């Protein structure tokens, strides 16, 4: 915010001539081209280059009016003219914040509204607003991923639903749920509407909070700015999963065989196709043919035959592949990840005058993925302009067009290339002796796939998406205090991608077919709003009334097709028509609409007593005829205590306002458009049948697709918020604190029906209840020591508690994510607990000897009265001992909550300042008190969890009779209930971390030579992102994005956040 500093210099009015100079309040520089009008006359002049003006023949009592686009109009009595300091309209804008369908003075806000410091936010080197916002706003929790272009998880004040809890974004008045392609450089202001008082006016879409964004507008003389950075991203390589080398890997196998044999009272039998049958395993020269040494006729290269582009089975069956062992070990992460460049270039031109304003910007962003063949390239252009016909009519547009090219890998699953980097054994090289891919072929080294092959084969897979997003509007001042605005906005998007599935030969489990697929989609979603705004001050009373109508329509199509059996795999040849095999295709359409009536009243008395009320009546096509409409009212009030007489003596207290709000918000995002209908449909894979016995064709069949529920209505949230805003001294300390309670009832949820219902989709019904309460705090401290030195500190603190209060009749919990635990789920959402908690058996130690097991079994017999009872299934020496919760026996009832991925709190700390021409900024972000489920350990810490890369822990820190104080249990040949086949607390780890998200040091060149070149600003900066992270988490990175509200915090193949080092420039003319 710019300071409100008026400096008047009194100059003597010399009879009828007045001279003066107009300067910019912000930088005290002269403003040329300001129109100076003698009020009530046609006499006018314009300031010259140095901002000065002269007017002759004036009445001494005349009033001068100073107008210039981009600045607030000011009136000064002619007798007082001298140096006139104009405040930029941006400064005025920053006092005014855009809230739902209106603007309010920041000091008059009664709802919980966070105003984002866009400048600070823009310091993060990311093309995504969400990524940039992490830690910047109290009450907002953002979880990012290192994968370029992967959307961050954006939550305002926790969870409002079992389904999606993404907030609603309103960009220049247009509602959208997608801001991934909005260029952050274009953002002028950003407000987060958190409570009902602020957000309820968005009715049925408000319940997860609303983010209001306005984009930049032009003003004043033409200004051209160029902002760019270029840098490098440095991934973690050098075996970050701490996997064993090939010899150790073989030793582990021997250890597991020995342990299992000994447990059965047998002698171990070592007969391994790769490592031989000696007492010590031997790393062979070749892994294919199995375990051969150099010189063996079987590895004669003359025998080698592989045709990587094979198209028929006979060819494949004749392959003779020869793969050398990589005795040093392949660092698959190192092969997969490498340093990669990142760059962004932003050019904008803006300006404005009496007749209108314009802003034009172009942005090119290119982040190469550290992971092979991934990247995020984006081209964005924006044009914002406004045209004024006279003082009363304005029309304009805000339009952005973006093109995105962003191939990504799927994250957080066991099959992605990152997971393959720990699942593929290090003895396997990347390539075989002839340069074709090597792998698990032959099936004796597990069944992982070669991640390098996966990434290299995808190099010609292409996809593009583009979106035109924005609005056009017209505004008419019908009366001085009554304005009508009509805005038509929305998005038109399309995307298309194509990919080729190669046949594989290097893996244990190969896909022998080749196929080519394309998909595409397009949609047109629009919002038309018509609003009347009346604002007036009567003495000490100020009132603003907004009323209007809004219609939202969404519709689009999706298309996909696939053909198999290509004669040639040349990417220039493969199309959907050139494949010789079966072709499949499919398409889908969507369509839904919303119609709303909106009203809002803001009233204040002397700026001291503030009242607000909003109401919205929404109708949605997704609901049945009887429940189409919902009404969402909210009330808020504020009291500026600091203006009261009894507080006046507290001089140190500059401002204090307490606020409160209560209201209802809705949610319909979790409802399928056809939920109200009982439907029948057909699906080739499921409902078609070869009734004619042809072996190669299917006949149309139908099945029930969905059980309809026409009675479904809005998910409704009762929201209470209390808070205060305080300023101490001259912005020495600014505090915004809020406490809130969100109570969601009629939560839309589709509980699983009994199996007797069949497989038709269960209806979404209004049954669940959930409560979230929390506390947001932001602190700011600004020290402008002098004009050469100043700094500021801002801190945000977010904490909330979530509790499921009910799910459905007879259903107290639902579980998700069984991963490799075969139907035993990791996550349980249970009444009385928060969402997505980890659940399973609690490990209390190891069984260190048979006597312990015998004693426990005795206990179990006593507890159950069953002479055959055992304490714990498959208990054995060296395995985990589970907690019995005092029951004397471990059963399914012994499972318990093991951890919570929701942090106790998260926080951001921003330290910034300047010293003369040097500026610096440090930004820390931290998460505290959450747990993560490190599923990677299932693969690496247990020998029997599929053959794959195993960890140091498995070999060197697993239980043995001589090493009982171990981390991992005894390594065996087969999995068991008491080691790795059920979810247990071994996988749960603390997820707390503190990260130096960003450091930036800049230098502004204030050189007259530069100014002479017409350069008004020239700044260079160096920057490091994600420089260090303090955490006890043993996985690659504790920030695990992705997952749904009811299942998150599981680390398996996560894409770690990567260090970045950048150099940047800000240049303007």
């Amino acid at each position, binding site marked *: 915010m710019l300071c409100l500093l008026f400096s008047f210099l009194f100059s003597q009015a010399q009879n009828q001539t007045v001279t003066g100079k107009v300067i910019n309040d912000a930088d005290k520089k002269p403003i040329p081209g300001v129109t100076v009008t003698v009020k009530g006359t046609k006499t006018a002049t314009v300031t010259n280059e140095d901002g000065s003006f002269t007017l002759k023949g004036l009445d001494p009592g005349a009033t001068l009016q100073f107008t210039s686009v981009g600045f607030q109009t000011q009136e000064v009595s002619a007798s007082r003219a001298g140096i006139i300091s104009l405040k930029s309209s941006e400064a005025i804008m920053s006092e005014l914040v855009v809230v739902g369908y209106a603007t309010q003075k920041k000091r008059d806000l009664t709802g919980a509204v966070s105003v984002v410091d866009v400048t600070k936010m823009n310091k993060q080197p990311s093309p995504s607003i969400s990524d940039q916002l992490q830690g910047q706003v109290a009450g907002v929790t953002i979880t990012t991923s290192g994968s370029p272009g992967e959307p961050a998880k954006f939550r305002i004040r926790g969870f409002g639903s079992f389904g999606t809890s993404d907030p609603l974004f309103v960009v220049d008045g247009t509602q959208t749920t997608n801001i991934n392609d909005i260029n952050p450089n274009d953002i002028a202001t950003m407000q987060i509407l958190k409570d009902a008082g602020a957000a309820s006016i968005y009715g049925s879409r408000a319940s997860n909070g609303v983010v209001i964004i306005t984009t930049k507008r032009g003003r004043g003389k033409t200004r051209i700015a160029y902002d760019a950075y270029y840098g490098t991203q440095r991934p973690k390589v050098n075996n970050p999963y701490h996997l064993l080398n090939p010899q150790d890997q073989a030793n582990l196998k021997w250890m597991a065989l020995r342990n299992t044999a000994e447990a059965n009272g047998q002698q171990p039998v070592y007969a391994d196709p790769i490592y031989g049958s000696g007492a010590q395993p031997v790393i062979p020269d070749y892994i294919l043919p199995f375990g051969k040494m150099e010189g063996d006729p079987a590895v004669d290269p003359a025998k080698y035959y592989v045709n990587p582009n094979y198209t028929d089975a006979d060819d494949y069956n004749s392959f003779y592949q020869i793969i050398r062992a990589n005795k040093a070990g392949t660092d698959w992460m190192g092969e997969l990840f490498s340093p990669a460049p990142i760059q962004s270039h932003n050019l904008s031109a803006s300006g404005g005058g009496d007749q209108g304003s314009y802003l034009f910007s172009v942005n090119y962003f290119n982040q190469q993925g550290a992971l092979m063949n991934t990247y995020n390239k984006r081209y964005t252009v924006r044009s914002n302009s406004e045209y004024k016909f006279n003082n009363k009519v304005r029309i304009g547009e805000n339009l952005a067009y973006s093109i995105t090219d962003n191939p990504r890998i799927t994250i957080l699953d066991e099959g992605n290339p990152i997971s393959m980097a720990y699942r593929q054994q290090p003895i396997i090289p990347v390539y075989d002796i002839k340069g074709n891919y090597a792998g698990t072929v032959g099936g004796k080294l597990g069944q992982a796939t070669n991640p390098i092959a996966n990434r290299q084969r995808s190099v010609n897979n292409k996809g593009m998406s583009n979106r035109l997003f924005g609005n056009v509007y017209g505004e008419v001042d019908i009366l001085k205090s009554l304005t009508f605005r009509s805005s038509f906005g929305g998005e038109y998007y399309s995307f298309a991608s194509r990919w080729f599935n190669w046949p594989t030969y290097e893996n244990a489990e190969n896909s022998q077919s080749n196929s080519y697929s394309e998909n595409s989609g397009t949609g047109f979603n629009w919002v038309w709003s018509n609003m009347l705004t009346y604002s007036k001050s009567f003495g000490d009373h100020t009132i603003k009334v907004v009323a209007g109508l809004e219609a939202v329509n969404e519709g689009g199509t999706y298309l996909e097709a696939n053909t198999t059996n290509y004669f040639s795999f040349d990417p220039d040849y493969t199309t959907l028509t050139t494949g010789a095999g079966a072709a499949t295709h499919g398409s889908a359409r969507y369509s839904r609409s919303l119609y709303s009536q909106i009203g809002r009243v803001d009233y204040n008395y002397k700026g001291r007593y503030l009242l607000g009320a909003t109401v919205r009546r929404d109708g949605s096509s997704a609901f049945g005829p009887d429940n189409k409409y919902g009404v969402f009212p909210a009330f808020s009030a504020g009291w500026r205590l600091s203006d009261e007489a009894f507080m006046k003596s507290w001089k140190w207290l500059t401002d204090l306002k307490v606020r409160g709000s209560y209201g209802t918000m809705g949610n319909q995002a979790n409802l399928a458009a056809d939920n109200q209908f009982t439907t029948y449909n057909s699906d080739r894979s499921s409902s*078609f049948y070869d009734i004619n016995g042809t072996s190669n064709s299917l006949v*149309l069949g139908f099945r029930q697709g969905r059980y309809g529920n026409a009675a479904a209505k809005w998910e409704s949230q009762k929201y209470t918020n209390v808070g205060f805003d305080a300023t101490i001294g001259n912005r020495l300390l600014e505090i915004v604190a809020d406490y809130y309670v969100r109570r969601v009832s009629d939560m839309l949820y589709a509980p699983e029906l009994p199996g007797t219902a069949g497989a038709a989709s269960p209806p979404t019904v209004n049954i669940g209840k959930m409560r979230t309460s929390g506390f947001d705090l932001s602190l700011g401290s600004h020290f402008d020591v002098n004009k050469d030195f100043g700094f500021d500190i801002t801190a945000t603190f977010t904490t909330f508690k979530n509790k499921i209060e009910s799910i459905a009749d007879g259903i107290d919990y639902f579980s998700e994510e069984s991963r490799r635990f075969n139907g035993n789920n990791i996550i349980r959402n249970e009444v009385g607990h928060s969402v997505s908690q980890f659940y399973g058996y609690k490990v209390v130690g190891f069984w260190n000897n048979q006597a312990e097991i015998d004693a426990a079994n005795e206990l179990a017999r006593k507890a159950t009265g069953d002479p055959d009872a055992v304490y714990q299934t498959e208990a054995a020496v060296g395995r985990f001992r589970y907690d019995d919760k005092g029951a004397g026996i471990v059963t399914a009832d012994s499972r318990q909550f093991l951890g919570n991925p929701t942090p106790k709190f998260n926080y951001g700390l921003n330290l910034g300042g300047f010293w003369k021409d040097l500026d610096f900024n440090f930004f820390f972000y931290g998460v505290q008190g959450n747990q993560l489920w490190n599923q990677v350990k299932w693969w690496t810490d247990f020998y029997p969890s599929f053959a794959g890369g195993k960890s140091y822990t498995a070999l060197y820190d697993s239980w043995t009779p001589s090493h009982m104080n171990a981390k991992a249990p005894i390594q065996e040949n087969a999995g068991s209930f008491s080691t790795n086949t059920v979810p247990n607390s071994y996988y749960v780890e603390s997820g707390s971390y503190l990260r130096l998200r960003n450091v930036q040091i800049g230098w502004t060149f204030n050189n007259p030579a530069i100014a002479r070149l017409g350069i008004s600003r020239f700044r260079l900066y160096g920057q490091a992102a994600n420089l260090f992270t303090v955490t006890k988490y043993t996985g690659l990175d504790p920030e695990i994005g992705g997952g749904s509200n009811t299942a998150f915090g599981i680390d398996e193949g996560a894409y770690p956040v990567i260090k970045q080092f950048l150099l940047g420039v800000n240049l303007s003319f």
Partner: protein
Amino acid sequence: MKHAKYLITCSLLVAASVGLDSCSKSFLEKPLLGNLTEPVLANEKGVTALLVGAYAALDGQNVGGGTWESAPTNWIYGSVAAGDAHKGSDAGDQPPINLIATGKSDPSNGFFNAKWRADYEGIARCNSVLRVAGIAEGIAEETKTTLIAEARFLRAHYYFDLKKMFNMVPWVDETTTDLKAPNNVDIWPNIEADFKFAYENLSGTAPAVGRVNKWAAGAYLGKALVYEKKYSEAVTVFTDVINNGTNSKGDKYDLPARFEDNFDPAEKNNEETVFAIQMVAKAGTGDISSGNAGEMLNFPYGNSPFGCCGFYQPTLDLVNSYRTDANGLPMVDTYNSVMVNNDIGIKSNEPFTLYSGNLDPRLDWTVGRRGIPYKDWGNHPGYDWIRDQAFSGPYAPKKNVYWQATQDTYSDRISWAPGSAINIHVIRFADVLLLAAEAEAQGGSLTTAMAYVNRVRNRAASPQSAVYKYINDATPLAGFSTTPAANYNVKPYPAGSPIFAAKETALKAIYFERKLELAMEGHRYFDLSRWGIAPTEINKFFAYEGTYVSDIRGGSFTANKNEYFPIPQNQIDLSSTGGTSTLTQNPGY
């Protein structure tokens, strides 16, 4: 003037908002996209398409269950759990099957839930046919009856599957409104009624070869009656079916001379087909869900041409069962006294000696073993195709494996594991003959029983049912020689055989014949359970097999518990209201 302005503005705005409001009604009506509602289907074409949908659920795929969990062959529940086969693969792969195989089935085992869901989706589809047929217009009465009879047949099939798996299951039909139906009533009468309706109302030839006819209904009714131990009623029905029955095309039921015809997609829907699930390859679904996806894991591993996944490995016990004596008769009590040579621990490039004793040739159409032609894929190499011999033995499945010569037509490699167009027999005529033999024997007609058994054995003995060596081992596609691949010797029971002189020995022989003929087809567990000999037979198997192979060590079959699988815990939970479930768990769980 000022007032006029106000007035005009306000009336314009009111008019605009009223106008918008009235058109909002239609604005908020959005059509159902890509779906239909019930009335659209209430006609002959619609009901027929719903019936096709009810057939489509037979394969257990994409119907809310799993892939292999709800395989229509019941290879896990019917065969792996009964000692026909090991789970296969290695220990860490699909561990819930290890538990099912060793009698440690737990209600929370997700496999049972998947199986349950898949069958009930089939039932729901049948109920849709019946419900919509009830309101449909313009269907000729005869056509309507046929549609209804087929739907009831299919419903009875799904319930039969549930009944043999779980015993007490809730009955849900087209009139049921409360889906939390209880499982406190035996549903055999309902199953019988549905099959009877189909038996009495369907004709001998069906409108399409994949649709069921009167005789399929009769055969299935007979099967249900045998399960219910209503032997004399069963005899009546079976006699009709055996004497007069035809397949859907109208061909009289018989056993083709070549045993393998049952598993060769080129020979599908032959005179042995009573009720088969039609499978396809490359039919444009982009996956193998209509092509035996339930068996996708069950192919040799390692450097085999199939790639995946080394499951479903026949047991040593099963292989030994095919030993025959000098008279070509099975060694019902002593088959395990000598083990058929196997190649455990012998690498593929090391020498191996084939078993030279007498064998029933059905062995080599049922089990892939070292040194014997694996259809036309070459001699089975043993070790190289097996994932972990010490874990689950040296053998490979065979009945579900397609032929190399016709793989372009009948196999589908679009997925990570193979699919095929091999039909699944729910009932084939050999099954009918053996069930009829059982019913006859129970009723004391031992001669008729022996005749039925001998029809089955005679086919096994036919020269076309033997496996022959390749003309040239290096070029298996060049065809087979006339030299049998092993020492085959199988013969019918001779007239006056003492075995068929007493009911007890006759039944034993019939039971054993079922094991040999229908091995690896998902029947044995249910047979052993209904015969009441599961505890002895399966525990005997654990004791024998566990000496050589590690996976089933520690297995045990508990009488009066393991005869049925547990009601899925998830279903008990989902059927509760106010803390009490309408479903009761089976005894012992």
